[in-house]
C-alpha cells in the first residue's frame, strides 16, 4: 500500500515538503495580510504556491490511489510554476516587485523549489510498483 511511499527516503521528502508548505503558507499570509496592494500578482502567486505545497505534502503523506494522482498533479503544477515564474521573473521583472517562492527558479530558497517536484515525481514513480 502507500506505506512504501511515506516510509524510508519518502519520509525525508515529505518532511522537506512539510517545511516548505509551512514556510510558503506563513509567508503568503504575512504578505497578503500586511501589504497586499504593493504587489498583488506576486502575493497571489505566493498563496497559490503555498496551497500547492500543502496539497502535495498531504497527498504524499496519505497512501491511497487517489492521493497518488493528486500528488502527481501537484508536483507537476509546482514544476510548471517554478519554471514558468522563473522565466517570467527574469523576462518581466516589473510584474514582480516582490519575490515569490518561484522567482528566479527558486534561487532565494537554494533552488529547492526546482529540485523538490522532480524528486517528488521520481519518488512517486519509483514506489508505483504494485501498490497503486
Amino acid at each position, binding site marked *: 500500500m502507500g506505506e512504501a511511499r511515506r*516510509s524510508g*527516503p519518502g519520509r*525525508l521528502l515529505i*518532511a522537506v515538503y*512539510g*517545511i516548505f508548505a*509551512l514556510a510558503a503558507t506563513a509567508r503568503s499570509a*504575512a504578505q497578503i495580510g*500586511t501589504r497586499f496592494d504593493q504587489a498583488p500578482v506576486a502575493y497571489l502567486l505566493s498563496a497559490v504556491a503555498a496551497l500547492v505545497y500543502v496539497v502535495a505534502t498531504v497527498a504524499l503523506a496519505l497512501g491511497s490511489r487517489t492521493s497518488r494522482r493528486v500528488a502527481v498533479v501537484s508536483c507537476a503544477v509546482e514544476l510548471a510554476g517554478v519554471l514558468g515564474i522563473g522565466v517570467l521573473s527574469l523576462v518581466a521583472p516589473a510584474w514582480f516587485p516582490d519575490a515569490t517562492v518561484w522567482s528566479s527558479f527558486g534561487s532565494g530558497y537554494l533552488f529547492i523549489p526546482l529540485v523538490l517536484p522532480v524528486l517528488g515525481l521520481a519518488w512517486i514513480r519509483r514506489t508505483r510498483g504494485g501498490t497503486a
Partner: protein
Amino acid sequence: MIDSLSVALTAVALVAAAWSVLLVALNKPLTLETWLTLGVAGLVVLLEVGLLAQAAIGVAQLVGTDRELSGPTFVGYLLGPVLVLPLAALWAVAERSRWGASVLAVGCLSVPVMVLRLTQIWAGHG
C-alpha cells in the same frame, strides 16, 4: 536580539543536524536505546529549550522596542522553530528505518534559517 543566543542556537542546530546525517550514513535507526541516538535526542531537547528562551526574550524585546518592524512576521519566526523542531522529532522517531534521522536533520536545518531571518528582521533588513 541577543547575538550570543542566536549563535549558540545555530551551532547546536548544525551539530544536531550533522549528527542526524551521521546516523543516516551509519544506518542507525532512531531507537533512543543506544548512546548515539540518545545523544542527538539530548541535543534536540537542549535546542528546544534554547528556542523557547529565544521566543520569550524575543516577545519581551518586541514589546519594549520602538523599532520599525513587522510584529506578526517577527513572532512567526520566533514561534516557527519552537513548533517545527518537536514535530520533526516526533515524526523522525515514528520512522523505524534509518530515514527517521533524516527527518530530524531537516528539522534541525530549518532552525538556523529561521534564526537568521529573525536577526535580519530585527536589524531592519526585513
